């Protein structure tokens, strides 16, 4: 032990002596310095790459100095000048980032990339996000390099608008304003301005297998009671009567339940529902949940056509977007209906309609170029809008003149769905329905539907939360 110790000490003092010699120390320092500097450079490079990896392309093409340098650059660097005029003057084209959530239907991603590539005035890079897209987009908006153009479910949130995170798009509409679906335009407006351009309209509705209903002697339901009875009659063997989502309808049926008793989320800036009226409608869903006639725990959820096409259920709450797949799998053997009124005379049948809104980030480097692109794609480019609406999943064009040209939506079940859309369509949730209100409602709905909690007491708590939220957002 002592031998080893002393020998190591000897070696170290020899090294010290060597280090003291100027020439030896000099070369050693150089070699070490090289590695040290090289190492820290590599580290700096790595960090810069992390910070700069905002999904943007090469900074040299974007006329925005600073964004690639570790995210340190500010967004003000390359404002509108070169971007707006770049196309006409033959200067370098700006590069725009466009974000989409993942559409499930085949071909959609290739289609939106094709539209973007054909835009002449900018290089548009499309990013496609599966999973929790909304959170990703909301977080990215806070950074100094947000996506220039992004889509938000039913447009941007009220908080994003009030914080100045999204650009005012009112002037993009021009003469086309009156051509847009008024309910959707209204949904994306706040303070008299339009904050998102409705891309295409989505619609949820009840789809059923005609043959199975005929066999069981069941008519399409016109009241909640009839729906419950139909679900019971259609439950046979491994086939359940009804599928409204694996959560028993928490995510899909709150709106239809409110409308089914003639109420709403928000009416004239005030809470639009009462525990007395809405309570029984939601409590009704609990009886459905525990009846054994509801499909629960399916591998795919309500937004996917598989449960109905694989024969797991006879009726499914789903979306218009699935119609091409229903036609392929079931041929003509399916029919459509709205969510029924709770009871005769109590409310009305309803279907939720919503649209992804194309928005422009106010902190983006090329706001004007981004606005020009949104106008080109979602206002002026009616050919691509039509392609997007009916070539992959089925959606409704937001522009009524375009909707009139959508031939594939003019026949069969799609045409029947459109009739329901005209008479029973409700905007999914209103602008003033904040994320906090939505969480409060979905928590309460879960407790009512799954646990059988007292619906009136739970809804009373929701009313208190929503009142506070309405007060908060209308105070600004």
């Amino acid at each position, binding site marked *: 032990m002592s031998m080893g110790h002393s020998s190591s000490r000897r070696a170290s003092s020899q090294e*010290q*002596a060597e280090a003291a010699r100027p020439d030896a120390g000099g070369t050693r320092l150089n070699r070490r310095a090289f590695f040290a500097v090289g190492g820290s450079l*590599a580290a700096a490079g790595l960090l810069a790459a992390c910070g700069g990896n905002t999904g943007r392309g090469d900074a040299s093409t974007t006329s925005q100095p600073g964004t690639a340098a570790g995210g340190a650059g500010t967004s003000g660097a390359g404002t509108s000048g070169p971007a707006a005029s770049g196309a006409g003057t033959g200067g370098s084209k700006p590069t725009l980032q466009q974000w989409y959530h993942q559409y499930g239907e085949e071909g959609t991603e290739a289609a939106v990339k094709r539209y973007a590539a054909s835009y002449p005035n900018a290089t548009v890079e499309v990013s496609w996000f599966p999973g929790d897209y909304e959170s990703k987009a909301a*977080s990215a908006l*806070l950074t100094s390099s947000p996506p220039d153009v992004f889509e938000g479910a039913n447009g941007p*949130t009220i908080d994003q608008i009030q914080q100045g995170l999204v650009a005012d798009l009112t002037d993009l509409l021009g003469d086309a304003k009156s051509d847009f679906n008024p309910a959707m335009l209204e949904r994306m407006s706040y303070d008299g301005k339009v904050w998102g351009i409705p891309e295409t309209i989505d619609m949820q509705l009840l789809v059923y297998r005609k043959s199975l209903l005929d066999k069981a002697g069941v008519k399409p339901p016109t009241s909640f009671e009839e729906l419950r009875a139909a679900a019971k009659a259609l439950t046979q063997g491994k086939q359940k009567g009804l599928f409204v989502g*694996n959560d028993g309808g*928490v995510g899909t049926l709150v709106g239809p339940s409110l409308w089914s008793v003639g109420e709403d989320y928000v009416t004239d800036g005030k809470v639009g529902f009462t525990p007395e009226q809405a309570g029984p409608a939601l409590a009704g869903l609990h009886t459905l949940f525990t009846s054994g006639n509801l499909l629960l*725990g*399916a591998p795919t959820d309500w937004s996917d056509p598989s449960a109905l096409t694989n024969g797991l259920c006879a009726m499914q709450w789903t979306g218009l977007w699935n119609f091409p797949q229903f036609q392929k799998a079931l041929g003509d053997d399916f029919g459509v209906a709205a969510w029924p009124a709770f009871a005769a005379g109590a409310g009305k049948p309803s279907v939720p309609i919503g649209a992804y809104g194309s928005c422009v980030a106010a902190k983006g480097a090329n706001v004007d170029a981004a606005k020009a692109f949104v106008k080109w794609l979602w206002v002026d480019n009616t050919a691509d809008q039509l392609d997007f609406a009916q070539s992959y999943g089925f959606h409704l064009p937001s522009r009524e003149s375009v909707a009139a040209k959508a031939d594939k939506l003019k026949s069969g079940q799609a045409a029947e769905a459109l009739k329901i859309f005209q008479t029973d369509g409700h905007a999914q949730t209103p602008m003033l329905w904040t994320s906090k209100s939505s969480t409060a409602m979905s928590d309460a709905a879960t407790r009512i539907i799954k646990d059988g909690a007292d619906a009136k007491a739970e809804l009373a708590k929701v009313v208190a939360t929503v009142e506070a939220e309405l007060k908060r957002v209308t105070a600004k």
Partner: protein
Amino acid sequence: MSSAAAPAASRPWWRVLAGNQNRNLWFWAFVGPFFVGLLIFVYIPILWSLYLSFFDARNTVTPTDFVGLQNYATMLTDPNFLSSLGTFALFAVFIVPVTFVFSLGLALAINRTRWFQAFYRSAFFLPTACSYVVASLVWKMAIFNGLPSGLANTVLSWFGIGNIAWLSITDPPWYWLVLVTLRLWLQVGFYMILFLAGLQRIPPILYEAAAIDGAKPGWQTLRYITLPQLRATSAAVLVLLLINAFQAFDEFYNTLSSFGSYPPYARPPLVYLYFIAFGREQNLGQGSAGAIILAVLVGLVTILQLRFLRERDGARR
């Protein structure tokens, strides 16, 4: 030593900074990159969230609206946050002792195995390499889906038990079975390895001496030799398990959330805070306040636990 001290006086400043044998330089060459990473990705964010927690920071990370302790007051009176702490406690009560016993049992069994020890060790350790997300999807869609064709329901049907929608229903709360088995599968192997390492450090002399003194193999040697010798490992395992339980996120989020919303049950604190801070709400002030409260709680519990274990240790001696 004196030969080294003499030239130091005439060294240029950068040589002095570089230290004896350039030690400082080397220290920073190796530690520097990691330190910078730690600073940027860990310490600055922690300090930043402390800062954010005193502001009304909605949709912004550079807030101006100072609100003092209001975010803390909101979070501490928020029934959802409090119930999420309750959820955590319930989860920890399940998962900590169960993982402890399972991994210790496995380690003891494997330690006694004479044949294929390396094979069993690898086989049990392998799930640790699986991602939480992948495992969650397998559990949710293949094993515990609600259809008669799901694996769990198929097995039950052999015994004539009907179909169960494991993750949809709340009464009885079968979702806990899904979550606990998932985490057990993923982490038992890792703690088993820790225990195995601990077991292999126990000197065989102790067992020989015990045998000579008449201790029976089995429970007596386990109780009076193996377990006391494993105390350091056990303390480490308990602390790690508890912190891991506190940080529960991945499997909860991936089995129970749908379309960007999460049910109010089995919602651990991190999932709740995630939705406040990073969901559409983007309330970074309240989210940060909740995170700070959680960090303080984890710290407190860890200190208390270590102190408790040490006191018992002291009492024994």
